[in-house]
């Protein structure tokens, strides 16, 4: 696909000379008889459109279809020509709409039949069209600027559609020559300009139109190469509906469109498809609606050669309406979605169909088959006021019968935090932000912020329920949801602190914790051990965020200050305060290095902790199964031994290391005491039994406490 193909730029040149004011000689009755009209009234005389009116309304229809299907990147420049040229819009995307053009056309008005025909010519318009094709569009400009040195890859091609009343074939030849000469001249000018581009390829479509009942003076001619740059074709058509159908065929050719006819559309009032303003509400019938769209929507038919030909020239694919069952949200496997435009936009069947779709319902479309199973190959659906024809895959999938996810890695684990992750996904839903210039510079690209948020939210995120305590506790929720924020308010810090105090309170009251007992025999760890695990985990969570801001750090401080400590550690608090003082001093000297070191420290600690935790989880899971391999249980011990020297090996000891070491010693002391206590309560035989059974678990727990 080429972005800058011939169809990127279309210059319309419509003749506005006096003879275009002539009637097309096709009459339109507008005073129709209706049933509640009094008898004996003579209807008003029918009106007739001028050649100009026919030309303008057909070219507007061309633009309507074009803009419906290509709202961007396919541009029209509308020019009318009489004694001079009038350019009605520019290549700017903002100027590309039928309303704009209609307003401009109204300002031009119909041709003045009394103007001197000698001064008027279509040539003015053709010259303006060539000049205009040389002008760079915003898309070409953008592509050239981004490609920089490869800017020559951006090509400049275009099409001129000229609707006029020519005098003879010689006249047509003259018009072609004129365009060819003008292109040469303009291309010379374009070399030396930044805002102009040379025309590499131009397609001239000359449409000669004449009143009904007259003999044509110009013959049709298929596309012919005038020069390497210019090709030209001539169409000679009567004004009115002939011109309309010609332009309809041309817009399809020019923009690779194809037609689909939706058949069997029920317009029963019960379906609410039709507006009931009209009288026929009690009758129901099936209607057909013809839509245009990019022809790729028919890829499957084109390749298999099964496009059906309706009525001679017209080629359309018929698809059957399938009445939608529910409004269920389904993700269809869709290989393409193409904007549509109804051929007959304000006919009743068309507007019923489009309104139905615009109200948010989708319609599946079925291939009409005489026999065999039903094949649903397309779907009509609107998104934000635009209707798309979706192409659904209706052949066998190469991905059928894949191994279920439960058979693969992690498939046997049953306690994933599915609901919690669902909540996490809701929090990380995306939403569109307006495109503000210069946002890239400030690092505020919304998508980058979304990625950063995901990173923050997953710094500590255990995947299974048995791996976590804090995320199973309602009491931790306020802190857990706040701490992941990029910045905290004073109020947030307060909430976090309250959460922590609440936990302290729980511990004092000896409230039970939702510690997982999966894989452990008996009742699992004792209550104070449970709290130790919980505090460890909370500390891990908060620690991963301590670098975010000073307020995050304060939450961590609070956790550290509040988490349970053995009684003889009371004096440690005092020293802790001293440490803080000293840290304050240190801050003045080398705040950065200090914080960095402490961060590294915490990272390593975190990593070690996490590793432990993973091992623990793994051990637990494996223990669950009787045929698990035995040797794996030895791993954690090695891991712990690995971690210890690494911390000691560090050269100059930071305050944090000192601090951590202290806690570690304290904890290990505490743990020994715990073992002793266990010893005094239970008899020896049972204790050894326990160790034997849970071999690997105990050393592991020991190791954790050592640090």
């Amino acid at each position, binding site marked *: 696909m*080429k*972005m*800058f193909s011939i169809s990127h730029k279309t210059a319309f040149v419509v003749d506005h000379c006096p003879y275009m004011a002539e009637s097309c000689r096709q009459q339109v*009755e*507008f005073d129709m008889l*209706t049933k509640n009209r*009094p008898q004996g*009234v003579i209807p008003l005389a029918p*009106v007739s459109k*001028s050649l100009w009116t026919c030309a303008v309304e057909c070219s507007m*229809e061309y633009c309507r279809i074009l803009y419906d299907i290509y*709202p961007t990147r396919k541009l029209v420049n509308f020019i009318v020509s009489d004694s001079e040229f009038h350019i009605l819009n520019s290549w700017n995307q903002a100027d590309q709409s039928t309303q704009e053009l*209609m307003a401009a*056309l*109204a300002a031009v008005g119909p*041709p003045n039949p009394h103007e001197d025909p000698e001064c008027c010519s279509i040539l003015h318009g053709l010259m303006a069209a060539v000049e205009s094709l040389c002008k760079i569009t915003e898309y070409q400009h953008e592509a050239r600027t981004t490609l920089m040195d490869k800017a020559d890859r951006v090509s400049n091609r275009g099409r001129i559609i000229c609707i006029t009343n020519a005098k003879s074939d010689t006249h047509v030849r003259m018009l072609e020559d004129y365009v060819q000469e003008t292109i040469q001249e303009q291309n010379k000018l374009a070399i030396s300009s930044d805002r102009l581009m040379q025309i590499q390829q131009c397609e001239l479509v000359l449409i000669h139109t004449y009143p009904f009942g007259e003999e044509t003076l110009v013959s049709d001619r298929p596309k012919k190469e005038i020069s390497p740059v210019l090709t030209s074709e001539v169409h000679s058509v009567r004004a009115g*509906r002939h011109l309309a159908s010609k332009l309809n065929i041309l817009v399809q050719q020019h923009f690779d469109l194809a037609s689909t006819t939706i058949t069997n559309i029920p317009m029963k009032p019960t379906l609410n498809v039709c507006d009931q303003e009209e009288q026929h509400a009690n009758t129901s019938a099936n209607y057909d609606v013809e839509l245009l769209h990019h022809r790729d929507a028919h890829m*499957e038919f084109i390749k*298999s050669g099964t496009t059906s030909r309706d009525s001679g020239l017209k080629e359309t694919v018929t698809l059957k309406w399938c009445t939608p069952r529910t409004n269920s949200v389904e993700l269809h496997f869709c*290989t393409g979605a193409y904007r549509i435009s109804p051929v*007959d*936009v*304000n*006919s009743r069947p068309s507007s019923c169909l*489009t309104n139905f779709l*615009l109200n948010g319902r989708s319609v599946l479309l079925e291939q009409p088959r005489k026999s065999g199973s039903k094949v649903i190959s397309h779907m009509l*659906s609107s998104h*934000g006021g635009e209707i798309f024809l979706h192409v659904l895959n209706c*052949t066998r999938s*190469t991905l059928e*019968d*894949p*191994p*279920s996810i439960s*058979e*693969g*890695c*992690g*498939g046997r*684990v049953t306690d*994933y935090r*599915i609901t919690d*992750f669902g909540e996490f*996904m*809701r*929090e990380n*839903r*995306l*939403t*569109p*932000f307006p495109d503000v210039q210069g946002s890239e510079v400030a690092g505020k690209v*919304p998508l980058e912020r*979304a*990625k950063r948020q*995901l990173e923050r939210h997953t*710094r500590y995120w255990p*995947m299974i329920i048995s791996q976590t305590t804090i995320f199973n506790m309602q009491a931790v929720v306020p802190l857990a949801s706040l701490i992941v924020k990029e910045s905290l308010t004073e109020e947030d810090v307060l909430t976090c602190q309250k959460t922590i105090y609440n936990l302290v309170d729980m511990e004092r009251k000896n409230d039970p914790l939702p510690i997982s007992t999966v894989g452990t025999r008996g009742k699992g760890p004792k209550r104070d051990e449970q709290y130790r695990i919980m505090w460890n985990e909370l500390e891990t969570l908060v620690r991963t965020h301590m670098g975010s801001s000073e307020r995050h750090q304060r939450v961590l401080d609070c956790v550290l200050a509040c988490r349970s400590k053995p009684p003889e550690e009371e004096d440690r608090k005092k020293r802790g305060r001293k440490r803080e003082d000293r840290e304050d001093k240190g801050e003045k000297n080398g705040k950065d290095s200090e914080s960095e070191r402490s961060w590294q420290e915490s990272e390593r600690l975190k990593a070690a902790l996490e590793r432990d935790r993973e091992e623990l*989880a*793994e051990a637990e899971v*494996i223990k669950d199964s009787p045929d698990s391999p035995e040797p794996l249980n030895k791993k954690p011990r090695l891991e712990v031994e690995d971690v210890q020297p690494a911390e000691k090996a560090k050269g100059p000891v930071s305050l944090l290391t000192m601090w951590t070491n202290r806690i570690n010693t304290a904890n290990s002391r505490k743990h020994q005491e715990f073992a002793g206590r266990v010893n005094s309560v239970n008899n020896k035989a049972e204790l050894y039994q326990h160790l034997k059974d849970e071999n690997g678990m105990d050393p592991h727990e020991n190791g954790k406490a050592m640090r």
Partner: protein
Amino acid sequence: MPTVVLMDVSLSMTRPVQLDGTEEFQRKNLAVHGLTMLFEHMATNYRLEFTALVAFSSLWELMVPFTRDYNTLQEALNNLEDYDKTCLEPALQGVSNIVQQEWGSTCPCQVVLVTDGSLGIGRGSLRHSLSTIKHRSEDKKFPLPFPFPAKLYIMCIANAEELQNSDTLDNLEQLLSLNGGEGQIFTVEGPLCLKNVQSLFGKLIDQAYTPFHAVLRCGNLSSDVQVFPRPEPVIMDEEVDPAPRTILTDLEIVGFIEIGDISSPPVLSRHLVLPIAVNKDVDEMGTGTTDETEEENSANQMAGKSPNFCVLLHGSLKVEGMVALVQLGPEWYGMLYSQADSKKKSNLMMSLFEPGPEPLPWLGKVSQLGPTSDAKENPYGEDDSKSPFPLQPKSKRSYAQNVTVWIKPSGLQTDVQKILRNARKLPEKTQTFYKELNRLRKAALAFGFWDLLKGVADLLERECTLLPDTAHPDAAFQLSHAAQQLKLASTGDSQYAAFDHNITPMLTDFSGSGSSDRDRM
């Protein structure tokens, strides 16, 4: 991408290969040996690939229809018989039919042609087919290019030197160019022997059947995955941006969107995302021997029991009815979702959008999607009742804005009828009457259709005379006012014929005694 192996079983394949010292081989044996290696590779590393085996000589036969059962393929391969001469064209036609019947014409396929390079003589030979290619009728067209996207890999059980003596390579290259250049010709390097044939098929495996491994990330959560089928490079615009794009091996989730909001987007291709064991020797292990399979099984069991992010993600996507938006490369995105097949099995699936900053108009630019927490108020509403999607386009489409089209007389007649219908219900319908009147006026002015304005003015004047005695007096005033305004517009006088000007109802007051016919223009 399904594979069709097209195996030459013509008599020339039975030509012996000179090898000193060892037992004698036929070219066919070498070909079977190479294909065995390919099948073994696929059975272990690419086991979801569907493969069919077609044997051909002057006729062709589908030996094994598309299957993932590589034992069946192997068995059929071992039992191939020898036939007569090589006629490639009907065989390629056969492949084309087989693929279209099974997968339609949009599914990309790989065709592996295994031949000794003697492509027949006279009628039915490839040379003959290619020389007549331009003189074919519509129903006897050469099967290439295939109607489906296809890669053609030609495995010559012959070395380049011996092929140079004939025009074989030229013909094969022509075949490739007919296929749009998609594919490659492989020839044996060095003398024909088992080892060199192995390296020949090794090249094919490297080229076409290496599994695509990647890391799926969501912030700090991650999982090693295999993406199947392998995502192929994509070219967007051969003129402006001719370099093919390949997806990154680091797939980063950027956020989540409800299924209803993403709403059946068009995709380039779909791929299974299968978590693989972090332990590298688990997935690369095993050439199929029994004890290794056991080991593999236990390794798989272990892997099955350690939590994996893919499983967690899949479970939540399924429960919540959401998709994860994933970045595949610079300005290239895709989505991850749970896909259930009919047998209640479900899987994590990834679909690739078309490369570009804005693959789906209803989402807008993907780079402009950000976290909801950045928004002033939650765009999904406090109770999840709202959604920021779909994005509304800047301008409305014609079918959504009540455009005026009078190409068919019925269009014009309907519009005139609407005015008349409302005219008879004046003054109740004053607003709609003027709305319709102004719509007609605008279109008539734009199309330069002044005669219509005069005609409708006459029509309204006549309606005025036909008003029943019971009619509200205001009706007559409004009708003649409207008629007069239309007449003025039809003169083209810039004061009355301005496009943006609207005819406003005449201000009348029938509540009091006197009527004021001030005209508020």
